């Protein structure tokens, strides 16, 4: 069952491109991005190990369930709402930036809101499903897109146009003091473990997440690729000229055989899948956080057909997305993105601290066992 956990780790590691992580890192490439990444790899791995171990101490419980059953109600609702807002914003940001990418590279003469409508509709549709359905869809989408991911990554790394000198020069800036924002951006790549916040409900009790060394290995690889490959293609200076940095990088490659010539289109189709998966997961998680605020909430990870509340909450998220698209522009979107990356880093640490505290509390409570209603959930 733990394979589902690694699917989350992998697609969150890949989606960083849509949250402007490479752009942020490239921005600070001479002022502490490389050292920030190095620290982030260590910190991210540590947090991943710690948080997953803590979640496994609460078998079958999501973060909202844990918080609800060990903390006073008001405080629990407050924490759940914070969690929900962080997760919603993640989905909104990805959907918005993917829609604008498509607008620029695929359908330049289309009304931007029209494509946004399609993306939010698909996001609402995916996220309003039951947790188990989301997990199944997750697996299938990732396995379908895996060949493309591997193809593009290796095509990039082994491309003759990749200038290794530029990469070496940039890597030489590892001794500059790390910048905080690039540290936050880089930890995001490791943040796949956070999806346990809801998907822990589906891990059967007694599950062990083995092979956790995959996290540092795979995520560091993604981080290095998404930072260094654009530099290798565009040069140490030229790389800063682009906003949609990876779309331009993908467009630097061609496929010699087959119907499609420019890798860009394969890349964009791949990221349709990844962005929708990310939106589906984040909105689903946010929805579960909000549903957990209801006093008589019972988690139902395998509900069919789903309750109408799922639809309403997700439609509200879609409305928020349109509101955000109306308000934002390129500068504001950058600003929101960077602040979200910072807020996310803090919330990760906070979640680990709270979980650790509650784990100690739970261990003490075990001496006088009180059955927690949420723990008796059937996976």
């Amino acid at each position, binding site marked *: 069952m733990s394979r589902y956990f690694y699917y989350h780790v992998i697609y969150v590691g890949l989606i960083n491109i849509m949250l402007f992580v490479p752009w942020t890192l490239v921005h600070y490439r001479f002022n502490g991005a490389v050292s920030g990444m190095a620290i982030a790899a260590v910190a991210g791995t540590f947090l991943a190990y710690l948080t997953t171990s803590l979640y496994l101490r609460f078998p079958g419980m999501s973060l909202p369930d844990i918080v609800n059953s060990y903390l006073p109600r008001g405080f629990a609702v407050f924490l759940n709402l914070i969690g929900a807002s962080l997760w919603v914003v993640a989905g909104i940001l990805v959907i918005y930036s993917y829609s604008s990418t*498509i607008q620029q590279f*695929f*359908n330049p003469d*289309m009304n931007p809101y*029209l*494509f946004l409508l*399609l*993306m939010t509709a*698909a996001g609402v*549709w*995916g996220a309003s*499903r*039951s947790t*188990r*359905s*989301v997990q*199944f*869809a997750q*697996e*299938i*989408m990732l*396995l*379908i897109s895996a060949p493309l991911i591997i193809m593009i990554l290796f095509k990039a790394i082994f491309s003759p146009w990749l200038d290794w000198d530029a990469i070496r020069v940039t890597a030489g800036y590892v001794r500059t003091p790390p910048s905080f924002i690039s540290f936050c951006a880089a930890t995001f790549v490791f943040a796949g473990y956070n999806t346990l916040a809801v998907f822990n409900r589906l891990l059967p009790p007694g599950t062990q997440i083995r092979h956790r060394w995959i996290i540092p290995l795979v995520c560091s690889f993604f981080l290095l690729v998404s930072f260094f490959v654009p530099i290798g293609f565009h040069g140490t200076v030229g790389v800063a000229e682009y906003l949609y940095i990876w779309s331009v990088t993908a467009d630097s490659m061609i496929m010699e055989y087959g*119907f*499609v*010539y*420019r890798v860009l*289109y394969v890349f*964009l*189709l791949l990221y*349709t*899948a990844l962005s*929708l*998966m990310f939106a*589906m997961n984040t909105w689903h998680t946010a929805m579960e956080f909000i549903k957990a605020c209801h006093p008589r909430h019972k988690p139902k990870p395998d509900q*069919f*057909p789903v309750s109408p509340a799922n639809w309403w909450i997700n439609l509200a998220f879609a409305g928020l997305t349109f509101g955000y698209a109306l308000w934002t522009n390129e500068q504001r979107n950058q600003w929101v993105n960077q602040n979200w990356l910072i807020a996310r880093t803090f919330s990760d640490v906070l979640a680990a601290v709270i979980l650790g505290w509650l784990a100690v509390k739970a261990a003490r409570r075990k001496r006088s066992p009180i059955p927690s209603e949420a723990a008796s959930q*059937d996976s």
Partner: protein
Amino acid sequence: MIEEIRSDFIDATDLFTDILDNGFWAIEIAYFPSLCDERIKDGVLVPFSYRFDPDEFRRMLHSNPKYENADNPKEWANLLLKGYVLLKIEGKHYSFKSDRTPVTQIDIAQVESTLQGPQAAFTEDLNINMFLLRLRYNVPSLTVEPFDKGTLSRTALFVVYDHRLVNPNILKSLHKQLDKVKLDLLQSSGQMIKQLTEKSRRLFPTILETERPDRVASMLSKGKIAILINGSRFALLLPVRLFDFMHAMDDEYESFWMSRLLSIVRYFAVVLTITLPALYIAIVSYNPEIFRVQIAFTIDGSRAGVPYPSFIEVFIMLFMIEALIEASIRLPRIVGSTATTVGGLILGQAAQQAGLVSTIMIIVTSVVAISNFVIPNVSFSQSVRLMKYLFIVIAMIYGVSGVAVLFFALIVYLCNLRSFGEPYFALFTSRSKEKSNKEKG
């Protein structure tokens, strides 16, 4: 007895009633000659007439399992309609089972044919079907539950499963669903599928219909439940997954690698038949730059004579092919070949030479049609046939990216479906998990 029955069947002139008198006894007899077969002669008439012996006759009444007491007058009408003979002997009422079975031959698989597997298929008779099933899956733990459904037709059906392997939760929900069945006439297994699915307007079937006894046997051995319906050549299987619809019985009989290759080809064909017309519209009308220049020019060159946008072209050709498929099912066999020849001529060359459609579109149409027929299951193949129109509509609005998004939505839809509480489309859910569910439940 005769008057009471006559008052129930006032205008039924085909009901035979008489008082038989052999000089010793007089018995009353009533039956429908059209529903009963020749067994009535050996079972009733011969012992009653020239071989009559009162003691022997009484002994026969008690020892022959075909004779049963029928003292409840409310049951009479029902028994007569099921092909029983009603008798009144020495003041007591008996029924004699003599229902006619029109089918005694085993059918040959027509819808799901195989190359080298068994060719036998279910018939329209329940008992022969049960025989065919017992022939392949004969274990003591095989359970058969009889039901009657349909307020007018009172069609007999059997729910068959292996009680060692079946998941009791699924059985419970099946019983609940069977209680809810509201039908006047139950004539085919398709009606039963509609009644058994919770939301009857699903895009994809969640109950498998099959005419092959070997498929039913192999599914029973996996703990699934089969429903056999009297008068239907198709058995129902549940719960099923998407992979069961894409699975031909040949896959179990052919060599390992060949069957793997063929099933990959089948899945590939499904993706093609769903997306190819949509992709044609998207590429021609929205994003020709996706393809390398040479191919883009080839496609555009072949469309040089076509005066309208690509989606109209697609609709023309798809209408033709759908009409052709429909015609070749409905037409009598003799005329059928004419339809295909004429249709083939139009689809093949004439439409393109007349400048109505492009050459590439003809290839697209034939790939779509052929790929659609690769799917082993008819109802699944029809669902897939429907899906491509959704993709065409989205491609008309959004181009290639719309097709990609809709493909995602389709996957989510399939993952969201449940067949009697079991996941419909999920990879690697092991059988051990199903068993652990069973232990819990």
